[in-house]
């Protein structure tokens, strides 16, 4: 499973803004391929944003989140150079993550 992720964490006035772009098909399980066979559901269920290993956002997603999902969140208490990580897990048990430092 491709787990490449684009992630950026930037210090704003009084918060840190995290933006992440994951690579994932986010299949709903309701679509059919050209032969009419159902394409099995495959979507991210669980996303965590971590700041120095503390969870700052816990998200749960359904299949209605768009393919190659975008996530934007804001948390307080970040400092330049801190590690920010985004970790996801999908309904098939695959997972992926991305990491960056706050700038």
């Amino acid at each position: 499973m491709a787990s490449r992720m684009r992630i950026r964490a930037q210090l704003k006035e009084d918060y840190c803004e995290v933006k992440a772009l994951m690579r994932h098909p986010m299949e709903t399980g309701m679509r059919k391929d050209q032969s009419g066979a159902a394409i099995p559901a495959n979507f991210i269920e669980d996303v965590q944003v971590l700041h120095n290993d503390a969870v700052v956002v816990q998200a749960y997603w359904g299949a209605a989140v768009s393919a190659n999902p975008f996530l934007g969140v804001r948390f307080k208490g970040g400092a330049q150079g801190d590690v920010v990580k985004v970790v996801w897990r999908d309904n098939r048990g695959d997972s992926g993550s991305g990491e960056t430092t706050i700038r």
Partner: protein
Amino acid sequence: MGNLDPLGLTRRGFMRVGVTLLAVAALPQKIWAAALRPETVFQTTTLEATFEALGGVPQVSDGIIFSTPDIAENGAVVPVRIEIDPSVLPDVSKLYVIVEKNPNPLAAVFQVPPNTQPYAETRVKVAQTGNLYAVAEANGELYMVQRETKVTLGGCGG
């Protein structure tokens, strides 16, 4: 033959025990998973059922700033943003994105601890023109804001 065949009975009995054990073994994990991800809410198929599963129809609040496009050319990628005005709505711990006309209206939940701003940005699929709801939970109470998004191209395979 059936009644007199001890092996058949034993096998059946054995299967019964096996199935029971399997069910028991599967139980704790299921409860654990349900406690984390709100599976029952994700599985609801109508807006009414979704609100009911959340704990009732939320009251309208202008402390929620919900940004969605008025017209989405492509229903597969509709950007949504939820911001909270803490002076109107303090202590928000959860944000929900709900798309009324989708097969399962609940699209996403964002849980934030006190030090995280109740803020979320993502992109969702919108099957057809209808209302989008941003729901915020603060101190066990539910608040919402609704916005209509017109979709010119459906989000589900269209």
